[in-house]
């Protein structure tokens, strides 16, 4: 490291960016694991439709496949933004 290094802007804390990205993608992949292959696509299309009406984050739509003795249940939850922040029509 040279003295010049002190003058350059310090790199961002990219480790914490990595951690947050992984947290989201790993949770998403776990939820659809073992379910039909179309789940991730279904999730993205749903997200697009929802976004026509209200602005939500990319991780706002959560899909879960629950298995029980009676079969499989597709669980869907959509986190809406705080009412004040909502700008949708």
């Amino acid at each position, binding site marked *: *490291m*040279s*003295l010049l290094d002190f003058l350059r802007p310090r*790199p*961002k*804390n*990219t*480790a*914490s960016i*990595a*951690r947050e*990205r*992984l*947290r989201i*993608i*790993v949770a998403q*992949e*776990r939820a659809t*694991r*073992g379910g039909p292959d179309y789940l991730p696509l279904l999730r993205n299309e749903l997200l697009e439709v929802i976004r026509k009406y209200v602005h939500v984050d990319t991780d706002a739509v959560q899909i879960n496949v629950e298995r029980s003795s009676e079969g499989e249940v597709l669980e869907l939850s959509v986190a809406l933004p705080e009412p004040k922040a909502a700008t949708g029509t």
Partner: protein
Amino acid sequence: MTETIVITSGKGGVGKTTTSASLATGLAQRGHKTAVIDFDVGLRNLDLIMGCERRVVYDFVNVIQNEATLKQALIRDKRHDNLYVLAASQTRDKEALTQDGVERVLEELKQDGFDYIVCDSPAGIEKGAHLAMYFADRAVVVVNPEVSSVRDSDRILGLLSSKTRRAERGEGAGAQHLLLTRYNPVRVEAGEMMSVKDVEEILGIPVLGVIPESENVLAASNSGVPVIHDAGSIAGQAYADAVARLLGEDVSMRFLDAPKKGFFKRMFGT
């Protein structure tokens, strides 16, 4: 009782073969009769890392296809007479490994009184990787503190809990451990690399060991002597600690902090 341990990762090049060689050697050093098997058909490498490449006559596929006996194919380690290597075949035929064949070899090793069978998995999630994990009682998931490696590890954890014989029989997933390799504490402290804690939290399974990035690993591969033999290196010591934990001993983690640098070194050093 024989315990079968798979060393797996999903992503390639993270340190599975390095880890298989050192864990198997460590188990043998601790007095356990151990076999280490290369499942990477077509890309044999464990023999080089174990330093027995010139003694390979018969391989895993020869045994499965009844062209050689298991006894003929097992290569006894030069340094430990309770350690044996079973080399992968160099055939390009990926179908050469069969589930029945693998099961028969593992069963014979059990009959022969092996305490541990270490299975070095190929990268990916194809047949070789599937068969390496299928019969395992335990899994060591090798992971680098890097986004694609962590994500692939989670994929592998999913397969371990559904696509193994234990899982299919409803016996539940076997024990799963994370082994972080190529860990660089200096970069972790600088915020450039995820920490052990980060990776452990994301994947949610306990850490068996942390192997620092070390130039001794390359030197060990160059000379065909597993790095655990290099007791003076931190990588060798970290592997020895991991072996102790694998055997149920309570050993605290070492080499997680960056070495303290003096003021001058920090200003002018590299």
